[in-house]
């Protein structure tokens, strides 16, 4: 058995290579006209992902018995004192992420087969999807910080391609460009961070003999950097590295690309912009945890940025009418939760939330996709309602998702509760209260979407049509982990503990054990329930008479809290500020420099030329054609020369 597993460990790179091959096969197969059958594409894709899933399972099995992480590296660049490598690092964290990515991806691919069936870019879609799988799996397997940067950019690329999938739509094109550029800001920070980290620890790596920037030796390296660079520079380095996760995991103030990214096909929103890629930021924080943990300032910064993100995006989600946008802001908010947890030291809790969130958020997105698909691309919730009767499977799975994300007993409850207890254990009262407020808002806006979409009367125009099995089956399959994963891995009731598993081998990390008191879970459930009730009060038809009788309807509330409402519907003016900055500051600067270049620098060059020509013109004025002038020039010149040199001679002697 061991040898059997050994094979999978030794060749773990194949997990990432499989989608790459599929990508190439689809690209070349399509463009060279080898085949045109959609079935081939989908089977290839699913098979490669399924093999990857099995592979990941074996790796997972191996990790259960392994003491040490497994690494394997191949040299990539070797020049001077720089040695960069490619390779894979297999430990518990990688195994978990591999499982999550492959499983969610597999289900979403099946779903996409139905969703994208009518689209002319079907093959293109799957080739992009495979490219994404390759990049994401490569990222997860990465053995060192530098390699993760490479795949970091590649997932950004696949995200760019998929957001811009319908590139003829100006909004999609715009969103794709925006996503890439904002991610580039993060990448730039990450690159600066990595290079400066490498610079300060270069001697250490050279002495250690380990692969440069390897995750396995990051902890002593970070300590070395801390001592050699000093706390302030270290803070800057770690913050620069954190810029990467900030952009990728859509943290404030770089979160604005994520809601726009919903321009891509819905399965993509589910896979990339909810479950996997955006979680890569959290994953990186976990991977490079020793770097951040070495400086408490950095940790605090991370925690607060997470908290602020969670809060701001939750408030925005409260007032959105676009179903996918609401979910997108909810994703931001949940990512904020995870980042906050990581920053506060609740390492395992953050990752646990990552895992549970991946399933229920993917499912929620797929549900919304089914709804949108069924209503012929209608995304506005004001034109929905009562869809439970038309698509019951979707409605119930969506409800499960809502319960999960709100933290009512299902998966989300367990992970969220761990975060809360972590915060509590760390005496982070302010963050804890922030988290609880966000939890309330989460429950409210999620159930608001549920009531607006699935309950009450249908307010749309087109007839809702049901979706094929290929789309509903993945929903059901996803509903299972969404509901049960939390409790299954909670470590309670003699069930296996996710925390223990993920922390294994990392005991040196700051880790806040959540204590076993009942108070926090109860409070969090109560808060979530009150959120649900509030949502029901405003949006459920069952309370219609009641709310009309007390005259507290949604519209009234909006009217009475106009400034706040305006703030949230305008997305806290962050995007507007960015656009204003670009239009009013950045582009004018560029234009100014461009003009400066054209008129001043080039102008100087041309001026020199003109000046020389002018001098020539002046000289030519003496060429009158009259011999008198010529002789005058000659005598003047001669006398001048005589004067100068005779004087010079007199002076010299």
């Amino acid at each position, binding site marked *: 058995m061991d040898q059997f597993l050994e094979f999978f460990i030794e060749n773990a790179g194949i997990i990432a290579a499989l989608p790459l091959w599929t990508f190439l096969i689809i690209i070349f197969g399509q463009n060279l006209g080898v085949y045109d059958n959609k079935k081939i594409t989908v089977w290839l894709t699913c098979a490669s992902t399924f093999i990857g899933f099995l592979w990941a399972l074996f790796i997972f099995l191996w990790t259960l018995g392994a003491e040490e992480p497994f690494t394997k590296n191949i040299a990539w660049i070797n020049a001077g004192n720089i040695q960069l490598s490619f390779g894979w690092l297999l430990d518990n964290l990688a195994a978990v992420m591999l499982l999550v990515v492959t499983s969610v991806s597999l289900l979403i691919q099946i779903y996409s087969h139905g969703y994208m069936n009518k689209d002319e870019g079907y093959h293109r879609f799957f080739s992009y999807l495979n490219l994404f799988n390759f990049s994401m799996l490569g990222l997860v397997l990465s053995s060192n910080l530098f390699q993760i940067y490479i795949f970091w950019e590649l997932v950004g690329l696949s995200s760019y391609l998929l957001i811009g999938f319908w590139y003829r739509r100006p909004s999609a094109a715009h969103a794709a460009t925006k996503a890439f550029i904002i991610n580039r800001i993060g990448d730039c920070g990450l690159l600066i961070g990595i290079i400066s980290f490498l610079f300060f620890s270069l001697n250490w790596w050279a002495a250690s003999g380990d692969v440069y920037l390897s995750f396995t030796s990051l902890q002593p390296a970070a300590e070395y950097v801390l001592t050699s660079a000093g706390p302030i520079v270290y803070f800057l380095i770690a913050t620069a590295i954190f810029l990467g996760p900030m952009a990728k995991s859509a943290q404030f103030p770089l979160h604005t690309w994520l809601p726009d990214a919903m321009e891509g096909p819905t399965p993509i929103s589910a896979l990339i912009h909810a479950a996997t890629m955006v979680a890569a930021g959290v994953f990186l924080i976990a991977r490079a945890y020793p770097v951040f943990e070495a400086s408490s300032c950095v940790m605090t910064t991370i925690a607060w940025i997470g908290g602020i993100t969670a809060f701001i995006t939750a408030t925005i989600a409260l007032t959105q009418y676009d179903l996918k946008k609401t979910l997108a802001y909810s994703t931001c908010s949940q990512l904020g939760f995870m980042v906050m947890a990581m920053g506060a030291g609740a390492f395992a809790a953050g990752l646990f939330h990552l895992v549970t969130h991946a399933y229920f958020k993917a499912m929620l997105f797929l549900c919304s996709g089914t709804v949108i698909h069924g209503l012929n691309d209608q995304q506005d919730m004001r034109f929905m309602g009562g869809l439970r009767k038309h698509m019951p499977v979707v409605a119930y799975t969506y409800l499960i998702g809502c319960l999960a994300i709100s933290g009512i007993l299902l998966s989300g409850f367990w992970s969220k509760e761990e975060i809360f207890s972590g915060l509590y254990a760390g005496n982070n009262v302010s963050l804890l209260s922030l988290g609880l407020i966000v939890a309330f808002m989460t429950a409210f806006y999620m159930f608001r979407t549920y009531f607006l979409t699935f309950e009450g009367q249908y307010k749309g125009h087109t007839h809702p049509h049901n979706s094929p099995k290929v789309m509903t089956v993945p929903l059901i399959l996803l509903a299972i982990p969404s509901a049960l994963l939390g409790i299954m891995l909670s470590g309670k009731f003699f069930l296996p503990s996710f925390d223990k598993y993920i922390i294994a081998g990392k005991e040196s990390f700051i880790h806040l054990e959540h204590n076993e008191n009942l108070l926090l879970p109860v409070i969090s459930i109560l808060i979530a329930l009150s959120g649900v009730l509030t949502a029901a009060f405003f949006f459920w038809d069952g309370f219609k008479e009641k709310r009309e009788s007390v005259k507290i309807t949604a519209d009234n509330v909006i009217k009475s809290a106009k400034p706040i409402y305006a703030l949230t519907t305008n997305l806290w003016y962050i995007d507007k500020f960015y656009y204003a900055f670009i239009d009013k500051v950045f582009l004018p600067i560029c234009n100014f420099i461009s003009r400066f270049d054209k008129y001043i620098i080039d102008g100087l060059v041309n001026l020199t030329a003109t000046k020389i020509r002018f001098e*020539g*013109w002046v*000289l030519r004025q003496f*060429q009158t054609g009259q011999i008198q002038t010529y002789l005058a020039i*000659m005598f*003047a*010149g*001669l006398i001048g020369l005589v004067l100068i*040199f005779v004087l010079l001679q007199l002076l010299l002697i």
Partner: protein
Amino acid sequence: MELLNDIKNVFLPEFIITLFALLALILSFSLKKEHQNLIFFTSVAGVIFALYSLMLMGVSIEQQGFYESFVSNNFTAAFRVIILIGTGFTLFLSKDYIASFGKSIGEFYFLLLTATLGGMILCGANDLVAVFIGLETLSISSFALCGYTKSDILSNEAALKYLIFGAVASAIMLYGFSFLYGITGETNFTFIASFIQNYNFNSLLMIAFLMILAGFGFKISAVPFQAWTPDVYQGAPIPVAAYLSVVSKTAGFAALIRFVDIIFVESTLFAITLGVIAVITMTVGNLMALDQQNIRRLLAYSSIAHAGYILLGLAIMTNDGITAIIFYLITYLFMNFGVWAGIELFALATGKDNIDDLNGLAYKHRYFAFGLVICILSLAGIPITAGFFSKFYLFKAVISAGYEYTPLLVIALINTVVAIFYYMRVIKAIYVMPDEEVRSADIFRISFPVRLVMLISVVGALILGIFASPFIEKAKTVNISGIETILP
């Protein structure tokens, strides 16, 4: 008997040229108009014989004659070769050109040979009087040559201007000679030199030097004695302009180099004077050539600029500088004659000489255009033509004279950039303009002798560019055996 000995030892080519000049004159009186072509062949034969006689003479040892007023050595021989070849080119250029004016052509060849005689005397002159005689022989013949096409107003004007300017310049020079004579009481270079070695410098010597420079400056068209150049080059018959720009200039340089190196080699102040004049000359020449519409005027300014570069080689007062000058003059002979031949070809066919008139030349006559462009590139100093090597060698000489000459070098280098601009304008006219392809609208007949000159020039410009080594070596040996005894 001594006279014959002197002629045999030092004066043989000059003597041959004199004979043939007289022969040409006699023939031009006696032959009918249809047979005047014979005079051309006579003159060519004269030049060839003169060249041959130079080879016979054995110039490796310095010899003096005519009471030490005329010397013959490697150095003067080199210059005489350049002058003779230049004269040969001019003869070829003249054949069709002068004939096209429908006049008797005999006198033309006579005058040309006389001018050559003057130039050759100038090369070997070792006495103030000999210098003056050579200069005047050259000048007076040139005046007549300039006005040869007398129905042409521009030609008349050119002749007159040249005459007046030349007369004044000669007068000033003579005045300078008198100063020099007054100081030293000698007319012979060698004696003057030995006198000056023990002489305390004063302003008088400087004034004498500058005044004498006026005469040479007029010949080589150095600033401020350059003003006649454009008008004369534009007005004079093209072969004469070519002759003036190459042969006359070479003769002037030969005399100037000997004069400066023998007499004024001692003081750095003379070097500075020459350096300043060189720099001003090249700058003025290049600046004035910008935006010039007439290609003959453009060439005139370009020749002023080249005079500046060549003077630079003299200003540094080293052996290497002299070698550079000799090499430069050899290359200049080819490239400048090439361009003049091209212009003449064009003028013969179309009667035009503006740069814009050259538009579309490349479509009509690709090989002619190609040759012309090679010569222009050579003037501009673009590799791998001769002009690049000569400039490079010159600059190398400047820098190896010492780092204190770096300012001169930098100014000269910047000048080459300015020069590129107007040379490229000609190339642009030939190859780039007009935008649309013109289909051989007016293909013209190309005169054979001119074509021959052009071919030789282009080949020369390329060969000198690619295999410069033997020529530089030759220039070096010529220089060392001739001048080293004089230079410190």
